[in-house]
């Protein structure tokens, strides 16, 4: 009979004692000093927080952060605006508009079609990485930017366009140089 009344189904039930406090305990002096001691102790401990954009913690190899649209070894954009990332996105964060590559732009885009507009709404994005899995052109990555999405003051600032997403040209050049050395 007593079993269901006393046991806790959630496992977090605690018996509370209603013991009368002594005079010393009623003063709360000792309790305050005890509490303060814990606070003061933390002044001399190593800080748990870091100043993020200035200081960066080492990223785990399986982290997923800010997206980056990759360039190939010749500095051309890999993305062909096939729309599979937008299709696979469970949060529907990705929109794009395709355009045809014009003659003379072969050094900018790898295929005859490219993404004229490519936007990711970082407020909608849940960083699941399905866009990376879906990409047939090896274009979108959440792991190579080694960055998190920074804080902003306006909601519109979280819609990242190609200016923020495409890999910087210097990074592509550096990667190519490193690869040729190896």
């Amino acid at each position, binding site marked *: 009979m007593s079993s*269901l*009344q006393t046991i*806790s*189904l*959630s496992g977090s039930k605690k018996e509370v004692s209603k013991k009368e406090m002594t005079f010393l305990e009623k003063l709360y002096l000792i309790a305050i000093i005890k509490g303060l001691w814990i606070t003061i102790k933390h002044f001399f401990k190593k800080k748990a927080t870091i100043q993020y954009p200035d200081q960066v913690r080492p990223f785990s190899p399986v982290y997923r952060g800010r997206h980056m649209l990759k360039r190939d070894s010749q500095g051309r954009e890999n993305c*062909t*605006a*096939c*729309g*599979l990332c*937008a*299709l696979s996105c469970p949060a*529907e964060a990705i929109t794009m508009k*395709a*355009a*045809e590559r014009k003659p003379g732009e072969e050094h900018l885009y790898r*295929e*005859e*079609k490219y993404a004229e507009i490519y936007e990711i709404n970082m407020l909608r994005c849940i960083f699941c990485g399905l866009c990376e899995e879906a990409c*047939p*052109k090896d274009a979108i990555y959440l792991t190579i930017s080694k960055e998190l999405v920074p804080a902003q003051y306006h909601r519109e600032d979280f819609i990242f366009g190609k200016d923020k997403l495409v890999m910087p040209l210097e990074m592509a050049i550096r990667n190519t140089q490193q690869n040729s050395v190896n």
Partner: protein
Amino acid sequence: MKVTIDGQEIEVAPGTTILQAARMIGGESVPPAMCYYSKLEKTGGKCRCCLVEVTKGSDADPRPMPKLVASCVTGCMDGMEVASKSSERVTEARKAVTEFLLINHPLDCPVCDQAGECDLQNLSFEHGKAQSRFIEDKRTFEPENIGDKIQLHMNRCILCQRCVQVAEQLTDYRVHGVLNRGDHAQISTYVAAAIDNDFSGNMIDVCPVGALTDKTFRFKSRVWFNKPFNAHRNCENPECCGKATLWMFGNEIQRVTARKDIYHEVEDFICNTCRFDKKEVTDWVIEGPRKFEKDSVINQNNYTRPMEKVIMNTEKGILEGREQDRKKISMAQIPFNNQKKQ
């Protein structure tokens, strides 16, 4: 005449081909077809995708046929027994045919406008290998301009010759065809003439791959981001039925195609005016959204389909005591101020 396909019996009229009989039955035993088109005459027999095994020739001659036969051009015989999906030889043959068709296909589906409604994509999804064994160079052609409405990508062509039959049978005079032979065979116009007939746009619809695509829709959107609607209009052209599928993005008509059935064959051909020039919503009477088969990518991200309600059957014993616990945790009966005093 009685025919049995994969164990399913059906009565057919004399002169029916095995493929047509299989389509009457429907379901999984329908062989895939790349070149055969029921609305066009003299199509079929080229792609070899629809190979089936005839295990019993007929009642009069019950011997099985030694080789696999192309079902789209083989007529039924009385008492014939056919194995399509159930035959391992057929599955192997389809795999081999798919591999052959993909030898020269550039596999540029991310760029191609046909992706999502491509017969070759569906075929290779079902029968294709994940890897290619072909290490030689693929056959390539110089890009060619065949007019301002139709885009030709010869590299993607599988030479089914459906478009040639469209030009033969629907338009007044044919200006394109298969030039050269063997590996050099290509669809082209004679001395780079532009294709501009009233019904030439139907080549886009009959093309099973992305070799002939709509230039007015080029790179505008992927097919699965468009919402297809059935619509009709009174076309001035007496031969045009005026019934089409509109591919809409919001209020914008991005593409107009003929209505296609479950075998991706058009129900009725439409004229070029309907297809290329009528891109305003006011031009059309919209009947309603068009349904597509369950597995089609066009149905992706479609939340309009009915969702089943989830019912959780919890055992009674687990729920025992939960009501008391909930009261104790949330303390709805005890006012907040009383709690403070204690």
